[in-house]
């Protein structure tokens, strides 16, 4: 039972204004990453080798591509949430903290886009 008044919630009152979403999304992505991460690791271990042809062939299969995109996106999100907390804990000074948070966010978004693009390129683009 929340002790917040509806007006308080609407106005975003409270010291941090928001934070539960971060906490919940961290748990949600964690729950998704347990099976996805295991799937990724065990799938790689079952490949006969890690040469380009084998890996590209594995990625290109629709089932794997779907799970890979899901894995990359979820991993990016979970990692972003986690690293953000570390920055907030240890980086002192308004300017430095802001810069660090922005950098962390950009790096994660870029890596996520790159990873997803790469999977789609291999699975759809006929390049290998």
């Amino acid at each position: 039972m929340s002790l917040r008044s509806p007006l308080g919630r609407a106005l975003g009152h409270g010291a941090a204004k928001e934070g539960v979403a971060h906490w919940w999304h961290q748990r949600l992505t964690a729950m998704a990453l347990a099976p996805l991460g295991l799937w990724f690791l065990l799938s790689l271990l079952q490949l006969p080798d890690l040469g380009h042809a084998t890996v590209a062939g594995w990625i290109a299969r629709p089932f794997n591509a779907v799970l890979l995109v899901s894995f990359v996106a979820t991993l990016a999100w979970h990692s972003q949430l986690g690293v953000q907390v570390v920055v907030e804990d240890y980086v002192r000074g308004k300017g430095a903290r802001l810069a660090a948070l922005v950098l962390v966010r950009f790096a994660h978004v870029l890596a996520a886009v790159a990873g997803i693009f790469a999977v789609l390129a291999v699975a759809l683009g006929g390049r290998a």
Partner: protein
Amino acid sequence: MALHERPLSPHLQVYRPMYTTVLSISHRFAGLALAVGFLLLAWWLMAVAGGEADYAATAAWLGSVPGRFALAAWLLAFWYHLFAGLRHLAWDAGLGFEKRSARRSGMLVVVLALAAAAITLALAWRQFGGGA
């Protein structure tokens, strides 16, 4: 963000490291290592998309001695972060808060993480010849 930076209360200078606190910071440490691993994963995927030539360069680094060390370290970080994370999820569900339970589950996490890491490393060694 606070307008005035208030001083942190001292903890590292005051409290002796304990089993549970070491496990906790290890979880964070493993998470940071895995965050770097995520960036490398994106890089590796891009290398696959780039074709044989691009892939060869990345694969060469990964297959080198420092590369294999890094992969082994990531494997350990993955398993530790996974089991320690499950322990966190149990706490979120309200389970295992007693001191005794916390210490026991902590030991279980370490044992499972080391065992899983050893097994998967051995599998990778066997499968890919001397490390993934």
